[in-house]
């Protein structure tokens, strides 16, 4: 599982985008399929709370179509059990002048993969941030495939990953800027922290531009919890576990502070509270 399986899937994917057939009806049984469509000029906020408990291999498909100049603030809160094996595929089309503000928060699972395929038309704005962790000796993955087709479109990302003992997270963001997409901006950032032995955080920011006018920035960093920080906090009277939790809390804050609304911020913080 993990990055290897993802890369293997790439090889048989000549059209660049994931095919739903890859997962649906074969390895994984399609258990849910939903469509969100926002009409022209409309605004909405949606919070999707998933606490799936299935034990088999399941797949879920969400199609999002934002019509011209509409705006959706979408928060996905996916808190899974340690045995869950699922793939969630999000097919997203942002039409002219539309905006999707996406918060993606994914916790746990034996294999818990979220793939976002996003197509941006002229002037569309895809802004997202999120946090994923795995402390279940499993694999949590957040994958983006963004196709900036339209001029003056914008794609920004800040995704943080946390891998506990014998667990892994995978972040991959492949952004493709079309030759005809003038004056687009892309900024992707991935930060990771490994909190236990044999934990792994894979990161692959990947931007391809066929238009020279594009403004692009990307970055990725992965760190272990610094033992010197733990010793320092020990010296201030904190035990090892308390010290680790405090350091981790600071790490989470980077993303959690971006959440608008105190109730939602509290809910997300509680979801990722250390056991």
């Amino acid at each position, binding site marked *: 599982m993990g990055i290897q399986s993802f890369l293997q899937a790439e090889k048989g994917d000549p059209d660049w985008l994931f095919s739903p057939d890859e997962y649906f009806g074969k390895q994984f049984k399609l258990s849910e399929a939903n469509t969100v469509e926002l009409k022209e000029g409309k605004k909405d906020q949606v919070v999707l709370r998933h606490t799936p408990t299935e034990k088999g291999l399941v797949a879920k498909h969400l199609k999002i179509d934002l019509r011209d100049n509409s705006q959706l603030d979408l928060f996905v809160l996916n808190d899974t059990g340690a045995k869950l094996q699922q793939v969630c595929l999000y097919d997203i089309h942002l039409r002219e002048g539309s905006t999707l503000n996406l918060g993606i928060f994914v916790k746990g699972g034996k294999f818990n993969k979220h793939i976002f395929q996003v197509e941006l038309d002229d002037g569309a704005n895809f802004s997202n941030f999120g946090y994923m962790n795995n402390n279940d000796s499993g694999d949590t993955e957040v994958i983006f495939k963004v196709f900036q087709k339209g001029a003056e479109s914008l794609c920004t990302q800040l995704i943080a990953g946390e891998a506990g003992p014998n667990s892994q997270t995978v972040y991959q963001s492949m952004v493709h800027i079309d030759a005809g997409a003038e004056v687009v901006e892309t900024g992707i950032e991935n930060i990771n922290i490994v909190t236990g032995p044999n934990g792994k955080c894979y990161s692959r920011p990947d931007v391809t531009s066929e238009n020279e006018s594009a403004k692009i920035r990307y970055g990725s960093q992965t760190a272990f919890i*610094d033992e*010197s*920080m733990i*010793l*320092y*906090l*020990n*010296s*201030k*009277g*904190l*035990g090892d576990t*308390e010290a680790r939790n*405090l*350091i981790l*809390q*600071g*790490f989470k*804050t*980077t993303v959690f502070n971006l959440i608008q609304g105190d109730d939602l911020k509290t809910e997300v913080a509680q979801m990722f509270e250390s056991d």
Partner: protein
Amino acid sequence: MLKIKNLNIKSADNEILKDVNLEVKPGEVHVVLGPTGSGKSGLVMALAGLPFVDVDSGSITFKSKSLLKQSIQERSLNGLVSVFQHPVEIPNTTNWDLFCNILKLRKDKRDPQDLKELYNETAESLGLDKNHGSTPADSDGMTHSEAIRNELLISFLLDPNLLIVDDIDEKLDAEDKLAVALNIKNFIHTKRRAGIIFSKDKQVLELIEPTHVHIMAKGQLALSGNIDILKRIEEDGHPELSTS
């Protein structure tokens, strides 16, 4: 309060301290003057319980209990707090939040909100910005001088019985050294706490108004007495301070 008997410590087979003896009673302020490599930081590490030195032989008791059997955390909770030369900064948290979390996690019965005024006063007296509590406690948010003063701020507010200060004035400019020394003096003398202050700077140690002065050289406390020792060094120099 603290008794060190025949302490010998090593680091990677190098002898750091040789037969060090020291007793600190409540309210006493001991300063230890010594050049780089004399063993000051080694003694601080042994007192704090840091794993970078090995105690070869000897004993340390604090409040009549063996300190060497206590973890770093236990030493701090029992009232021995060390102020380090290079305080580690915790990313993505503010200084006030860091302080509140430290209090909460060490199960301090005091309510942080009740300490807010004291926090602000202490920060101000250390020359920190009035909004210091809301600035980030990380390397982007603080200069070295601010990090040192922040370390003192948190250590003072933990209200230790014995404050150990390790050569923190080393990289500070003259003005900051003065502020740091005066604040250490005020904390220890006003609250009648005990302290062991290590430094290479004689003037800093004088400002602290010690009750006891020790000269450390080549891993040993070569000379002990009162503040007159510092005055004598100024007049005559002292051969023990030479590292050669």
